[in-house]
């Protein structure tokens, strides 16, 4: 497929299809409506199933079912809708099932607004639903990266039998950029012998379950999950560094905010301020090591988010008090401007 000019939501949907996803269950909510809309047109062309569920709760439980049968399956929503899905996500994590959940984040709390936000970072990375589990959370900062990450998300999910979330702010859902679809690097994905596809008497029965009444069994499951999370941390942590080689000041930003921050860093460099960016591409697992290492090099950090300050907590944990970590956030559905970030950088430099 040649390059196309695509909205983020469309690119996410097409990438899922290119990755072999043939089941999509969702419910409309702005600013990600183009995901289900695109799926509704495209799925019939590839003999797939698009189904608009009666609610987000129903949709995530349909995902649970399809994933249990070993299918590549996706759902998509935006903040309030993702909150509704949390119980199902926790069940899927406990049942050790692969699936992809897209959250195109809008402002909150509550019904909030339809403009972009990064206020769901805590929900995405620290649990969201109940219990000791983690999602792998990929945070694209361009439409091309959103497409690439969605395609890889299905592989990561299958590899670790764990749900993967695509965390994009409203801009990632709504803006348009040129996109090409490339298959991700080939992985050795284990056969889905656990899938409940009908019992033929030749293998152990596949049982999809998230209920473990006996504490000893629950403990075994919990330990297995935690070991898997450690493996994911080792293998799947992704980070991009921008102009960090000689940086004296480091901006921490992800998603669209990192794009604005890049523009600010370019302006800062023109003024002789040696700034760089560490951009987590996975926000769980969080690239703590990159920040820990940078703490020995730079004079200070500035975390920029479209929130009241959520990722900044992970940055502070990684920096561990070695250097000051300042925060600049915008809320309400606004994007930070390059000039506002630049001003904060100057303040950091001047120790204000």
């Amino acid at each position, binding site marked *: 497929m*040649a*390059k*196309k*000019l*695509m*909205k983020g939501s*469309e690119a996410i949907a*097409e990438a899922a299809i290119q990755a072999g996803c043939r089941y999509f269950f969702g419910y409309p909510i*702005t*600013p990600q409506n*183009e995901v289900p809309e*695109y799926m509704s*047109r*495209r799925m019939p062309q590839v003999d797939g199933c698009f189904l608009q569920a009666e609610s987000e709760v129903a949709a995530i439980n349909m995902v649970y079912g399809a994933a249990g049968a070993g299918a590549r399956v996706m759902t998509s929503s935006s903040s309030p809708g993702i909150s509704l899905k949390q119980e199902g996500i926790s069940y899927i994590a406990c049942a050790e099932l692969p699936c992809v959940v897209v959250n195109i984040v809008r*402002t909150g709390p509550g019904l*909030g*607004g*339809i*403009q972009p936000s990064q206020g769901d970072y805590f929900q995405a990375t620290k649990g969201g639903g109940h219990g000791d589990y983690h999602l792998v959370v990929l945070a694209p900062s*361009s439409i091309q990266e959103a497409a690439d990450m969605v395609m890889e998300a299905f592989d990561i999910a299958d590899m670790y039998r764990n749900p993967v979330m695509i965390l994009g702010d*409203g*801009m990632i859902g*709504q*803006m*348009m*950029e*040129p996109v090409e679809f490339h298959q991700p690097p080939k992985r050795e994905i284990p056969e889905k012998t656990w899938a409940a596809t009908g019992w033929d008497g030749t293998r152990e029965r596949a049982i999809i379950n998230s209920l473990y009444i006996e504490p000893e069994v629950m403990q075994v499951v919990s330990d297995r999950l935690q070991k898997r999370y450690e493996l994911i941390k080792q293998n799947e942590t992704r980070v991009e560094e921008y102009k960090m080689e000689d940086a004296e000041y480091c901006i921490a930003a992800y998603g669209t905010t990192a*794009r*604005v921050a*890049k*523009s600010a860093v*370019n302006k800062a460099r023109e003024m002789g301020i040696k700034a760089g960016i560490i951009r987590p591409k996975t926000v769980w697992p969080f690239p703590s090591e990159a920040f820990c290492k940078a703490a020995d090099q730079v004079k200070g950090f500035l975390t920029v988010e479209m929130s009241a300050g959520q990722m900044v907590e992970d940055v502070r944990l990684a920096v561990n008090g070695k250097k000051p970590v300042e925060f600049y956030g915008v809320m309400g*559905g606004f*994007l930070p401007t*390059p000039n506002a970030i630049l001003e904060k950088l100057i303040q950091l430099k001047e120790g204000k």
Partner: protein
Amino acid sequence: MKLKKFIIIAGNYGSGKTEISLNLALAAAREGKRTMLLDMDIVNPYFRSSVKEEELEAEGIRVVKPCFANTTVDVPSLPAEIYSPFDLPLDRAIFDAGGDPVGASALGQLHEKFAAHESETEFLYIINAMRPMQGNSDEIIGMLREIEEASKVRVTGLVNNTNLAAQTAVETVIEGQRILEEVSAKTGIPQKGVAVREDLAVQAAGLLPGKEIFPVRIFLRPDWLDETE
């Protein structure tokens, strides 16, 4: 481009109709025409023509938009003022329609007005052949017919605006031109011009002799977006 009093700009999302509408409105106002821009998109939450309302009003352009446009309220309703272009002393009204049959259905309520002013109405359909599921003439004609049906108005002219945003090369425009000519041949709808980002206009004019070139200044993409691609 020789233009009529009432111009409807429609096309699939991402065809560039909003940028073209803004350019047409500003060009008209700068020629001293009494101009109105009507943001008729009842679906799209981001990147709408009315986000530039302040700049447009400063140029003397009256902007009419959905009641809750650019707020966080997702309610599709249009003000009664959308009927005013047919009664006010006006030189040009540009109707920026929604980018799919649902979005364009808002035009439908004006179809009797457009019919009554048929000789003064131009319905330009904007084509960007780099959009997904709009890459060949049949897909484009399918969407065009759906939009016509929803809006109850017939397209009178095609405009090639094939682009890949910042990655647009003149070859992109030429590829779109080939596809547009197929659309034109199959439907009998004439081409009305080629819209192209202003920095490519001279090059495009050289490669497309005899075609009317409409240079487009980009308003809605934030600067940092393409700088950091």
